[in-house]
């Protein structure tokens, strides 16, 4: 417990879990964000295959990430084939980095045994 922690309360690192970004914290969106964090951009079909989500589910989660300003979605056509390209915005990258930092700190304080 650090000096800033209230007496009798959990450590600051554990309390930080309560303030986790819930847009990213949802498992399906966490997987989508982790994939997009590792690449420059990916289309809908690639995300569909990598996540194993259904089309409707993936669309819904991508829309939520887009609404939060974390993902930029570009739609277009290549010949007759429609495509939907997704990429993390700078705000998305920052939010995901902060999320990873908070979770790593908290998990580090939990211990395995």
């Amino acid at each position, binding site marked *: 417990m650090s000096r800033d922690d209230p007496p009798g309360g959990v450590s600051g690192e554990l309390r930080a879990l309560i303030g986790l970004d819930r847009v990213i914290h949802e498992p399906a969106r966490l997987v989508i964000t*982790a*994939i997009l*964090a*590792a*690449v*420059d*951009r*990916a*289309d*809908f*079909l*690639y*995300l*569909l*295959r*990598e996540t194993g989500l*259904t*089309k*409707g*589910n993936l669309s819904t989660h991508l829309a939520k990430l887009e609404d939060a300003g974390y993902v930029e979605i570009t739609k277009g056509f*290549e*010949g007759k*084939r*429609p*495509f*939907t*390209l997704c990429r993390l915005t700078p705000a998305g990258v920052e939010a995901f980095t902060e999320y*990873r930092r908070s*979770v*790593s700190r908290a998990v580090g304080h939990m211990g395995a045994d």
Partner: protein
Amino acid sequence: MDSTVREAGRRARRHAYEDGLAELVTGALFVAVGAYILAQSLVKPGSVWWVLLGVGLPVLLLAGNWAAARATRALKSNISYPRTGYVACAPSPGQCRAARWLAVGVVVTLAILVLYSALVSPVLLGWMALGQGVIVGAILLMIGWQAGVVRMSLLASVSLVLGGLISYQKWDATLGSGVFYLAFGSVLLLTGAVMMARFLRANRPVSLDSDDE
């Protein structure tokens, strides 16, 4: 979580080599270059045709690279992306630097070999094919390491062994180079065709028009 993100990046890089297109297109380019160099080896050294063919090789390499890039893009758009999707990998600064240095190394080494073959004694020229095998193998190893594609390491070994075997024959350097590119290009075409057949069998085009929920 860091390792998960790293693995997602490696999977994205591996995705580019799943369909065997890179090998097919590079193999076709190598076969063309090999046939060209073999044709040059049949012409009398110092003749007008020999000089013209020598001057034409860089043109073939540049035009071939341009055509290979366009062909890869077109084939990926029509065959691969409708089946497994599109992903563009984020270039990591360290890997970009390494790739740039490797490319510079390849160009400088080739230039030195060519200059040496033109100006100095042919003692080292007998090992030209081995040198090419090492360079091509190094490039393949780098790709295999970046993407985690095991068959690239196997192809690197084939390149090295092939270069060594051809050098051991003590053929003329031009003939040796021609045989190396022709033979290794054929190996690439073969592995590319096998990978493409497996890819097409395993992946059907996906329609994104209707929902499957």
